């Protein structure tokens, strides 16, 4: 995929991997609608893209809010044009420190599912139909190894990420015939605020930087035609050995 002049919508864009993706795609000539819940850190990321000569726009909203779905999709399309690349990056761990499943409140599981699964579903529903009509588009689900490994205490987040991976596979199965590509990507362990909240005593030197991981995801987008539709990729294994 030639990235220049494409239009992207990135959720969770104010920090960590989302901010790095916004900066890097902006630098590659992608017009980016960058979504986050809070304006100030987002405005800073958008300003960085613009200072580097790129195009980015700040969108403030919460994907867990059903009533915001069409505001997000419509505002993004107004600002950057019909969306060609949708990156579901926003996610929540739920309450930290992480709890065993039997100590997890049902409401906390619901909230995690809203942010990590139902919100992305709603946003894809509002965005992917236009991609299918135009027979063009890529949807990326940012996953986690917790989607495939059953780590004690990661229950709510794990369940949501496993379901998100499968949502990506199903979207690929249904939209493939309309030229829409979908993949999920496990970024590996990154040095982010979210990682610190989950594992406060981790050795930060052993963690990837969000910029390193974003560069690999951008490269996946460049080579998306070579990726099996619905695939689950690991950033640490990219590029694949040929």
């Amino acid at each position, binding site marked *: 995929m030639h990235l220049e002049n494409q239009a992207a919508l990135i959720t969770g864009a104010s920090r960590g991997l989302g901010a790095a993706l916004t900066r890097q795609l902006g630098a590659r000539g992608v017009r980016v609608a960058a979504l986050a819940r809070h304006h100030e850190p987002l405005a800073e990321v958008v300003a960085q893209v613009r200072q580097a000569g790129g195009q980015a726009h700040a969108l403030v909203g919460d994907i867990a809010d059903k009533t915001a779905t*069409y505001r997000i999709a*419509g*505002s993004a399309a107004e600002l950057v044009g019909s969306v060609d690349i949708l990156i579901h990056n926003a996610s929540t761990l739920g309450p930290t420190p992480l709890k065993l499943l039997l100590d997890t409140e049902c409401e906390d599981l619901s909230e995690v599912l809203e942010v990590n699964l139902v919100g992305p579903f709603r946003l894809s529903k509002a965005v992917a*139909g*236009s991609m299918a009509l*135009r027979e063009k588009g890529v949807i990326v689900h940012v996953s986690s190894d917790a989607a495939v490994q059953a780590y004690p205490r990661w229950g709510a987040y794990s369940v949501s990420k496993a379901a998100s991976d499968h949502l990506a596979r199903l979207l690929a199965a249904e939209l493939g*015939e309309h030229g829409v590509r979908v993949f999920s990507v496990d970024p590996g362990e990154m040095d982010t605020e979210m990682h610190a909240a989950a594992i406060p005593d981790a050795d930060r030197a052993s963690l990837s930087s969000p910029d390193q991981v974003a560069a690999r995801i951008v490269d996946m987008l460049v080579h998306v035609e070579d990726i099996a539709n619905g695939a689950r990729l690991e950033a640490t294994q990219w590029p694949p050995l040929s």
Partner: protein
Amino acid sequence: MATAVLSPASAPRQERSRQRLLLINSPAGAISDHKISDLPRLLAPGDLLVLNDAATLPASLRARTENGDLLELRLAQRNADGFLAVALGSGDWRRPTEERGAPPPLRRGARLEILQPKRNRAAALTATVIGTDPDHIPPRLLALRFDHSAGDLMQALYAAGRPIQYAYLNRPLELWDVQNVFASRPWAFESPSAAGGLSWEVLGELRRRGVALSSVTHAAGISSTGSPFLDRRLPFAEEYEVPEATILKIDAARSRRGRILAVGTTVVRALESAASSGALRAGRGRAEIVVGSDYPLRVVDAVLSGMHEPRTSHFRLLEAFAPSALLERATTLAAELGYHQHEFGDACLVFRTG
């Protein structure tokens, strides 16, 4: 001829596939009863379906004047300075537009505070009246400039607005009630509702059968202003964009003798406007043409539309595709069969060629 009475669909659509479809074949003079899910087998491989991909704006805003008077603004047209809006006075969505009270008097320079939906608290949005129509006292048509940068304006409108409502419905509309399943840029002031029955189940089956899909974006305008005088000016000029990819698909369809089907009167207006100087051209424009029985259609062979009663502007557009006697016969039959009209009602597919 007795006037057919089509009852309105009184609830937002729950299940797209339940929409009924009346096929009107003008050359054969034939009318037949189907469902929207039959559409793929009513078309032929090589045909091209052109859809309006405009998303529907929350174009209804509540506003307060500097004197504290309340009014409803219905955005009706976008232009370089802002929006043209219709102003409505007392009453809410349950009262038919034509029975709403007159709006409070407003002059050029008047400031309006946009209110949060369902409350009288100010939203973070204000507007200035920069023009008024000279035909009404108080003015019903206002040119507005919103005090917001372009990038933030759309988000502020989404936060403050609601979809334009219809008195014949049994509940107020939410934004998701008025979006088509392939909508993208928010250009439409009311829903391009002809595609309301189209699901991806049907669109996918169309493609699998060799019917191509393509799009235009057309700023579908408002259906009612509350003023008979202004209503006669409808539709207002509407912005449209025809992508180069659609021109290529139309050329390809014609070269294989496929037919060009417009989904909705807005698509007819966009494509015929884009061809009004002769050749069909890609790009943006303003649709100002009035399509009726004597309009020489250059592009479109058939239209999929809602059900419309005689003497409405939509019915007059259908007369470009089929004689009024055939359309009136179809309307009478549709009424007998229990078809519904209005935004969430049933549909007709009118072929002007075989």
